């Protein structure tokens, strides 16, 4: 009888221990996700409505304004890392500012232009492109170039790609007209790798002729 009771005790202890383990895992191991993507029904935010493709001379972007998500930022130049990936702003005064890949097209010139920004930092909360995934088709934003010209871009779509299956050709490949790509992180956060698993990519094209001061 004693051995039978002992068997039950062991079984109960095992189930209880399993329960404790699962509760602990459940509270700690779930995926942490990037800032929620709002499914709001807000109207697209237009900043201009004068259509006409632009093709100005080359000039780097120096400022980006995205009224729909409250972004007003300086745009700094950035390059590539040794492994060929996009270089991003390091911790410091420029961390929360957007950056433009200097190997991409100047805004308004044929080909893809790439501006990227952090979604957040490791400790200090939201960064410049925290709400990028909330953009919607037809939203508009303004990029100002070093030569003073401003271009209005209209969002064509907002996509989310796993970093381990990132469609480089689709995002960075040749285009038959001026295009813009805005890039930040998204999706679940991998605590062990200290990295978001996805990237959010906003595809946009210019509308209206560039305006000069």
């Amino acid at each position, binding site marked *: 009888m004693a051995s039978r009771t002992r068997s039950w005790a062991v*079984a109960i202890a095992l189930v209880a221990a399993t329960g404790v383990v699962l509760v602990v895992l459940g509270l700690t191991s779930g995926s942490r996700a990037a800032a929620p993507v709002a499914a709001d029904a807000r109207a697209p935010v237009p900043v201009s409505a004068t259509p006409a493709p632009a093709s100005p001379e080359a000039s780097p972007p120096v400022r980006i304004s995205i009224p729909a998500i409250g972004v007003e930022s300086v745009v700094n130049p950035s390059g590539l890392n040794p492994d060929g990936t996009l270089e991003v702003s390091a911790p410091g005064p420029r961390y929360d500012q957007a950056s433009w890949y200097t190997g991409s097209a100047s805004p308004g010139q044929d080909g893809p232009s790439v501006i990227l920004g952090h979604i957040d930092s490791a400790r200090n909360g939201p960064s410049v492109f925290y709400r990028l995934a909330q953009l919607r088709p037809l939203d508009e934003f303004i990029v100002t170039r070093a030569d003073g010209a401003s271009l209005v871009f209209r969002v064509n779509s907002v996509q989310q790609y796993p970093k381990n299956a990132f469609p480089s050709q689709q995002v960075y490949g040749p285009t038959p007209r001026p295009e813009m790509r805005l890039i930040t992180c998204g999706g679940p956060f991998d605590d062990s790798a200290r990295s978001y698993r996805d*990237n959010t990519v906003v595809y946009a094209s210019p509308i209206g002729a560039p305006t000069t001061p």
Partner: protein
Amino acid sequence: MKLRTIALAGVAALTLTGLGSGLALAQSGPPPVASIPSLTGKSTSVKLDSGFTDALSSLQVTPAPTGSATVEDGNASFPITGGNVTVYKPGEVTPYVQGMIMHDGSGLSLTKGDTRVTLEDFVIDPGQPATLKGKVSANGSVVAESVTLFDLDGSTLKPITTDASAGTATLTGTTVKLSTDAADALNKAFSTDALKGGTTVGIATIVVNLPGSDGGSGMPGAMPQGGAETGGGSTATGGVDSTLLAGGVLALAVAGGALVVVRRRAGARG
């Protein structure tokens, strides 16, 4: 024996919970047949229905293209300037054509005497219901920036076709119908009641460039590889796996219940 049954049930529940979690993780929607995140051109054309053009003629309303639109041989054509489109296998996802197709800088004018109504900057939304919205102006003044001009009946849509040599994909067969709001507005503008919502305007054909099919300009510098490390995680939310948590609570409940039963039995014997 009863306790053993409870314990086994608990373990079985945990196993099923784990399986359920795995299934949930593996679940995802069916893959699209084609997806173009940034449309770079081609056109939407509408083969105008004779019933519609005859109605306009009887009202002495003259249609004409505006901006970059063309009207030739009963076909109105509007260049695509942006947007995106994703096409699924019919029946797998509803609607099976999704996205938004923009046509900036083109449209149609309808003129009768001194009255000129312009419908421009069309945006096709193939959602449910599928619509074509646009800007409406009357004699040069904007009346509405974005209103539903046409209802789109996708039930007549034919399967997508692609032409590799031309680098295009074609969707044809959507029936374009005058929306009730547009009919009311036009009737008011032209002082008539002849136009009815639901009147067939024509059959639409949408031709889009396939990505990378027309060369284009690449980056002046090296093309980056892969995505970007643009986050540190301080705003990431969540961290609770509700399935594991529920399984754990269930296991603890089973263990607790079993313990109570064992103690009661032990007490009864003592």
